[in-house]
């Protein structure tokens, strides 16, 4: 085993809040002032936004998002979905190669995509040095095993310590 594995698999702890509303309201929420504990925002659909927050921040984020959104769209809905998703993170110099062993999603660098990863519907957040895979919690073990099997040739190593969600660099951020 090399000293520094080319590919590390770890779990990342975050809070996740799903926000539903009109596209305009979600645009405004996404571009609005930073909220305490908020790390990222993923636009899943024109009427759906997933806010990524620090672990344990879900309740506050829901309250804040609800407050902001309801002013813009009374029919909006904000739900804590933290337990519904498991975030697996691939880091190391072979992370892109590792991802290519799991999914046909075209990923060449930082960005956000959705689609099947290891046959499971997933949200994919790529950074310059890692990729976060958000998979349904009920399939987390399936995805873990598939990663370890498919990336065995890459020397994948399962880290015991959780990984951190990396905020997008300025140039990676959504316009």
């Amino acid at each position, binding site marked *: 085993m090399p000293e520094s594995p080319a590919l590390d698999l770890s779990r990342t702890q975050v809070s996740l809040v*799903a926000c*539903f509303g*009109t596209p305009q309201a979600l645009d405004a929420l996404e571009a609005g002032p930073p909220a305490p504990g908020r790390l990222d925002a993923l636009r899943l659909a024109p*009427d*759906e936004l997933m806010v990524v927050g620090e672990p344990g921040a879900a309740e506050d984020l829901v309250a804040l998002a609800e407050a902001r959104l309801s002013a813009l769209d*009374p*029919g909006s*809905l904000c*739900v*804590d*979905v*933290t*337990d*519904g*998703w498991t975030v697996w993170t691939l880091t190391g110099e072979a992370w892109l*190669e590792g991802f*290519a*062993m799991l*999914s*046909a*999603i*075209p*990923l*060449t660098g930082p960005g956000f995509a959705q689609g099947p990863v*290891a*046959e*499971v519907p997933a949200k994919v957040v790529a950074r310059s040095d890692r990729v976060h895979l958000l998979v*349904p*919690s*009920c*399939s*987390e*073990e*399936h995805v873990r095993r*598939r990663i370890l*099997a*498919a990336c065995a*040739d890459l020397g994948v190593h399962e880290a015991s310590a959780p990984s951190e969600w990396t905020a997008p660099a300025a140039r990676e951020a959504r316009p």
Partner: protein
Amino acid sequence: MAWIEFEGRRVRIEAGDTVASALFRHGVRTFTRSIKSHRRRGLTCLTGDCANCLVRVDDEPGMRSCITPARDGMRVEREGGVPSVERDLLAALDRLHPLLPVGFYSKTFIRPRLAWTVAERLIRGATGIGRLPTGVRPRISQVRHLHVEVLVIGAGVAGLSAALSASEGGRSVLLCDEGEPGWLVAPGPTIERICSLAEAVQRAASITTLWHHAAVGIYEGPLVPLAGPERLVHVHPERVVVATGALESLQTFRGNDLPGVWLGRGAARLAGRHGLSPGRRAVIVAETAEALEHLGALGSSGSKLVAVVASDEIPAPTAGARVIRGGAVMAALGRRGVRAVVIRTERGSERIACDTLVLSTRRFPRDALLRMAADLPPSGEAVVGAGEVVAPGCSLDEAEQSGALAGRGEAVPISEPPAPGLGAEGLVCPCEDVSVADLERAWEEGWRSSEILKRYTTATMGPCRGALCGWALAAFARARGADALASARTTARPPARPVRLEQLAAGVHEVVEKRTGLHHLHVSRGARVDWSGRWKRPFTYGDWRDEHRAVRERVSLMDVGTLGKFLIGGPDGRELLERVLPCRVESLEPGRCRYVVVLDEGGYVMDDGILCALGDGRAYLTSTSGGAERMEAWLRGWADRWGLRAHIVDRTSALGAINVAGPRARELLSRLTDDPVDASAFPYGAHRHLTVAGVPCRAIRVGFVGELSFELHHPRSRGFELWTALEQSGADLGVRPHGLDALDVLRLEKGHPYLGQDTLPDDHPDKLGLGWTVAMDKPWFVGRVALQRMRELPLERRLVGLELDGDASSLRGMPLALDGRVVGRVTSCALSPALGRSIGLGWLRAVDGGFPQVLRAGSAQARVVPTPFYDPEGVRVRA
């Protein structure tokens, strides 16, 4: 010094050797036997196109020895032949060929029926097509995905040129080849050009090369799987350039498959690259200018050129060999290999003694990939050919230019080769031993198109996939007057090149295992966990009867986190539910819940679940465990179709659910919550927000098992603490978990059908006795129109409750018979511990306008009885 082990002997290998070249140097001339007639087969193409050199390498059957690099320590065996390839008793079949015409099997083994069963085994055993390795754990291949702008298949002159031009402007290009650049080409001007281009490719930053990866097909997308030595690569390109070259045609004449008959490029490669002479005395058929290169290679290897059968446009070779203009090969003679050839000349026929016949004949494109793509519009338009695959016989300059055009995405000149001429004798399809005479016979029998000739004779269906014979088969049909459609080349299908079974299965993981948050807890409690749909669920924790008793007499827990769970909100959320559900949604007060069936447009029951009305116009809906994904898609589909602003949140993964059931369930719950759970505050058909053992829960009063029940829907991450708190707090109440085995009996006692097990796809609610769930006085809901029409018809089939004699627990699936006539089927049955008798559910067809009441299920009598069997008044569930 390196060696391979060949049938118990050590065979020395030299640098650059393939298995074939090493064996040939060792004196091996017969590499395999043909599968039907057991004719000898020797090296022919040396490009991996034909099936004449298949051997077993390190226990792996069907390896093409001509393109398999020899490695020290390899174990090589020949396949086929009884007892051996050299001395094959089944070679007698070749003499019996006239007695075994095409269609022989299908004509001969029709009756008795057992005949084919026996014959098939014998025939398969006699073919010698290799044995699958046994006792070896199958390897698991992985798939890697690659996304590029341009994929170039083939690293010959055209392919290399295409890659270079495609990379202009920094486009990402992947260049792949079954081998490496020039690996199949004999020394000469072609290899020099390839080397020069390959160097340029190596310098190009945006070109990635993938050697030893064969493209096995082109699929929609386009998607091109490449089979490599270690894994399968799925390439997702924007454009594809196919530059797979061309192959010399195997002329048809008697003995055209004898060892010693070579395709020109193969012979030249053996001579030029491996320094081996294909034979001592060679006759060469020269139809192309390239034949002169082959002549040179053969001459330098030590072969004596006896004669050159040259077409008029070929300049006279300088090697000093006798030149026969306008001649044609009529036969190759010999038993173990070529001993002489018969040439038709202007003066008649002439026999020439030789041991090698080299066919430097016109080439036909290796175009299977291109033809696959042509059937895939619009992705087929992204696939173009370059070089010999679209212009067979083109010069090196033309190939390079063609590649450059294709690489840039410009139009490439295409020239269709003229149809090959067919002789009167010989094999058309060497893989399947199909001769010209066989085709003639099939034609006479009425099989008059290339496609059905293929199916009847199996020509083109061998390992070479029609590479050698596809053109000839089409030409045969055309020569006999078939029109363009009936004489078209047969459909090209993957795999274009041989692929291992493990690679076909690579990346295929059909079952995605799902687990609830309590999976490990169940395992630690000794549960038998098994598949239930896509979920892994506990079936029993030891004795299902004990579990059953706990539910009926005390209190029990069940993990029902697999249920589909949806939050529906938004301004139009309730409207959506009102339209899609057949029950009255509007009248459901917040805090109340209702059992609902979900119908499709045909009025058939698609799913069922519980609908809970929340405040603010929101609702919480559950579905069956297996129906969650379909339910979500179905709800979203209707919302989109109607343009409703409804937010549908799938909470299946986010929430766990534990059913606390049994007469002492309330007692247990009240120990862990300060919220009121008494019957007046929390009656049957209600749902409440409770905090149980500190865990926030949505508790739903439903009763699938027919006892007082509280279904606690909670955050998935809190499931463990909730479950253990319930277990600990209820220890003195005799709480224990129950699994699916107990549930199956519990729900049956209540007469609840399992959707899927007890139902059929065309069941409407009335057939299931669920008509009460439908509010037909609603003006509209999905399925209403169809349901209304069906209600006007008499019920021809319905699900009924059954009481059976004796222990009927094994009668599931048993036909229900009335006077010997099958009128139904048992769908569920059990010996009920609560009732002390056998009960079941089953389908029953109407007989003479009514439903019979007494039937036979095997040897047992079955009586139709009303359901529920247990607690028919529902007192216990409403407690």
